[in-house]
Every structure is written in C-alpha cells, then in structure tokens.
C-alpha cells in the first residue's frame, strides 16, 4: 500500500500507536467482546475444520433413518432424507461465513470511498450523491435483493453485491460525517497548501484518521450482513442446495414442523441466533473500546 510510504512525520506514528494499543487492551478487558468473539471463533473453526470432525457426511442421505428424532447415534436427529442434522449444523456455518464478510468488505470499501468523496468535496457532488444514497437507503434490502435476483439470477455473487451495495450508503454516511469534522483541521489545510492532489489528501491524509468510526461501523454491519444473508437464503436466494446452510435448511424443513419434527429446524435457528448475537456482542465491544 502506498499509504506506508507517505512522508508522515515520526511523531505522528507514535501518536497513533499509543491509542491503538489502548483500544486493544480495553477490548481484551471487555467481557462483552470476549464472549462475542468466542462464539464467532467457534463457528469460524466449525466452518474451516468442521468437515473433519463431524460424525456423518452432511450431504449423505439415509432414507431408512429419515426424520429420526435426536438419539445417541444422531444427536440432533435426521432430516427428511435422513441426513444427520448435527453434522449439517456444524458444517452449515461455512457459506454464511464466506458470503456475509465479503458483502461487508464490499460495503466498507465502497462506502468509505463515497463517504470520503462527499465529505471532502461537499457542495454539488455531496448534494447529488447524498440524495441518491438517501433514496437507496429508503428501500428495504429484501426488496432490492428481490429485484436484483429477478434481474440477475440467483447466486452467491448476487447476494454479496446486493448486500454490499445496500449497506454502502450507511457506511458512507458515517464516514462522511467523520470527514466533515476532519477536513477543518490544520493537517488538511497543510496538505492543501502543499498542493497535494485531492485524492492524496483524502486517502492518505484523512483516511487514517477516520479508521476508528469505519471499524466500528464495519463490525456493526457484519451483524446485519449475517442477518440479511440468513434471511435471503431462507427465502431461497443466494446459497443453493445441497449446501447445509442454516437458512436454507430451515426453509426446506419448516413446512413439516406442524407434524412435530422440531429437530429439523430448531438447531439451525439456534445456530443463526448464536452467530448473530456473537457478532453483535463483539461489535458492541469494539464500539465501547473506541468510544471510551
């Protein structure tokens, strides 16, 4: 990255490292953050290595044992074609933990760029872009997703792009308001007097100073992204069968819960719940650490 080679004076660097260590320290003391990150890490480990320690192949059917209630052989029972629910829940974290972070990353990159542009230039650029972003924010993600999926067809990429682009305006708004405060400071005036070009001033001078709000917003958005990905795969968009994804499993099994086959959906629902709550607890911790 070119950011490393900037002529930033040495004292600037130490000034930045000090608070960073402090933030890390207060993160590690925050009980909320530790509990949250522990839950998230658990699911990350399941996503990465789950395959190797689950008792059954999550995709292998076994019609004779279909819809078996939880037992010693099948801890969480089996689904309608006899697949082991426990194995599917463990491995089911994989898709959501790929799609949601990628969508958040896209939202952060696009949102940061937009926020820097609108905050730095203000005036006409800001007015036009902000109005368009506001209009976008008024439309629920599910609706945007429905339209995009009708138009582009359903795939993981569509879901990443849809969620990424719908969250970008929200991040842009946060970045913009941080930039508006920063651009009045002397170091920005100094850069402008040096005749640095606008891109340099925005991305090299201002960007490092607005990282904290961006980080906080990103962790919060990750929680919402998981919410959205889970919802979309429940609606049948994005992640496709035979993936053992949680939302997808619920959508293919919930039609039978009237018959009392609760184990086919309950564990997936609890898994989504725990992941979402974990991410939000961690986000809460990050927020607290930067704002103390």
């Amino acid at each position: 990255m070119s950011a490393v080679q900037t002529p930033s004076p040495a004292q600037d660097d130490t000034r930045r490292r000090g608070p960073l260590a402090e933030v890390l320290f207060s993160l590690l003391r925050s009980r909320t953050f530790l509990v949250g990150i522990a839950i998230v890490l658990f699911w990350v480990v399941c996503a990465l290595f789950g395959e190797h320690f689950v008792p059954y192949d999550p995709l292998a059917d076994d019609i004779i044992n279909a819809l078996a209630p939880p037992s010693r052989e099948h801890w969480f029972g089996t689904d309608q074609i006899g697949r082991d629910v426990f194995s599917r829940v463990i491995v089911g974290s994989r898709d959501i933990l790929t799609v949601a972070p990628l969508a958040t990353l896209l939202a952060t990159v696009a949102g940061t760029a937009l926020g820097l542009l609108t905050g730095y230039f203000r005036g006409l650029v800001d007015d036009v872009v902000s109005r368009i972003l506001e209009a976008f924010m008024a439309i629920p993600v599910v609706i945007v997703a429905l339209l995009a999926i009708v138009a582009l067809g359903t795939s993981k990429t569509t879901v990443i792009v849809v969620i990424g682009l719908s969250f970008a305006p929200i991040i842009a708004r946060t970045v913009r308001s941080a930039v508006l405060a920063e651009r009045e400071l002397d170091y920005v005036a100094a850069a402008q007097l040096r005749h640095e070009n606008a891109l340099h001033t925005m991305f090299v001078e201002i960007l490092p100073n607005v990282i904290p709000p961006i980080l906080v917003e990103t962790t919060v958005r990750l929680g919402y992204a998981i919410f959205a990905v889970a919802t979309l795969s429940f609606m049948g968009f994005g992640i496709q069968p035979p993936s053992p994804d949680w939302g997808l499993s619920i959508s293919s099994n919930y039609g039978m819960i009237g018959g009392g086959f609760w184990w086919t959906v309950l564990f997936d629902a609890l898994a989504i719940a725990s992941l979402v709550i974990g991410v939000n607890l961690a986000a809460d911790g990050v927020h607290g650490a930067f704002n103390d």
Partner: protein
Amino acid sequence: MTLFLLSVMVFLGGQVLPGNVGRAILGPFADQRAVDALNHTLGVDRPLLTQYWSWISNFVQGDMGTSYIFRSPVAPFVIDALGNSMKLAAVAFVLVVPIGILGGVIAALNLNRPLDRIISLGGLSVTVLPEFVTGIILILIFGVWLRWLPISAAWPKDAGFLTQLYYLILPALPLFLVLFGYIARMARSGMIEALDSDYTRTAVLKGLPWRTVIWRHVLRNALLPTITVIATQTGYLIGGLVVIETLFRYQGIGSLIFTAARGKDFPMLESGILTIGIVYAVATLVADFLYSVLNPRIRLGSDQ
C-alpha cells in the same frame, strides 16, 4: 425524489429480466411468432421510455396494469394484499409501541439496576435476530409444543375480527420482537437525557411531585426522538413482512411481491414495490407532522 428513483429502478430491474417476457410466459418450446405476438399485446416491444411513461402515468391514475400470470388487472390483488399486510402491521404496532416505550421508560428509571440490564440486553438480543429465526422458535414453542396458537396465518373464511386477531398474534410476534429493541432503546436514551436536563432539575427543585415531573416534563421531551424512530421503522417493517408472510403463508403485500418476483410477473412486482414506496413516503410525512405537533419549538407557520 425517492419515489421517482424507486420507480425507475423497479422499471429497469424488470426490463433487464433474463430472456424476454413472452418467452418466459409461453415457455422455451413456444413458436417464435406466438412469442412476438404476445410481446406485442403486452406492449413490451415498444421503446423503454414510452413503456416507462405509459406505465407511470397509468399508475398515477390507479391503473396498475394487467398481471402476466393471472391475466387480470393487478390493482385488486395489490389492494387486497395491502389490506392484509396492514392488519398484520397494525397488530404488531399496537403491541409494540406502548410496550416498547414502557420498557424503555422503566429501564431508564431503573438505570444500571438489574431490571435495566434485563430490558436493554434482552431488547438488544431479540432485535438483532432475523425474523424467520424468532418466528421458527415461536412457532415451535406456541404452535407445536404448547398448541396455544395456530401455526399458519390463513384464517378460515368469514372469520370475525377476534378470530383474525387470534391468527395474527403469532406472525406479529417476530416483528414485535425486532421493533421492541429499537423502540425501547430510543425511549430509554431519550428518558436518560431528559432526566439529566436542567429543566427536570428545576422542576424537582421547585418542589413538584415526582409523578408530575415525569409526566409533564420528562416524558414529553423524552419521547420525541422515539416517534421519529417508529416512523423510520416502517421501511424495515416492510422488509420484515416479506419474510414473515412467507413463513406464515399469509396473503400480504410482501408475499405478493415475493411470488411476483419468482414468477417474473413484472406489472405485479412493479406495482407492489411502488405501493410500498408510497406507504413509506406517507409514513415519513405523518411522522414529521406528529413531531411538529408534539414539539412546539419547531412548529411551522405563523402562530401569533
């Protein structure tokens, strides 16, 4: 502005449909001439701008076009569905607004005590969960295990008001849970700010009873931001309705859009989404109006 952008987006979203409309309806083996004829009847072979103009000007006049799938006017479907969704949303709102505000107020009055912790943390946890997850868990508890409530929202024909209400409680609960957290949090922070203010201190110091201070001075100021939040949540609520109506097989505007999207029923999809946009715009307007009624400081116009 938002509505215009939304309409253009909806329109373009429909236009870049993979394959053409006639082909999609008649299937891959239909005769090309039949496909062309159908496209001509539906008017989808005209230039984009002409199509957009005729669509939007008809919509404004209440003509929403003809459904590709049902071959009958879209408007009655949309109006029916909107009515059903409004019933569901109304049940959720009637439950959540008073309870959410009450929760927030109680939490603020017990700041940092266990009761506050329970309300704040509980509210936060249920708010972040997707509606279909809480929905599934609630269906399991109340519908499957306890058998207190029906697991589908489709009530029998000619059901009276109370029966309909009985069928709507379970679908409304997930929406309630998501909204509860937001509303309680806003009410709580508004209360904390108002309790901390100079005018509250003045009221206490001049010897007013605590009850009067809370009712007259604190609540009124504390609840203003909450009203704005409630209004902005209509946007969310619509997204939530799509999910809930699918989960409970309820014939509302959300499931109408969902089915239209799956069946590529372009006029139905467009009209549904545009209707939602209008509802949202109206809700925002009403919120602005309420806000100015409740807050004399920003009341517009020439009062004396």
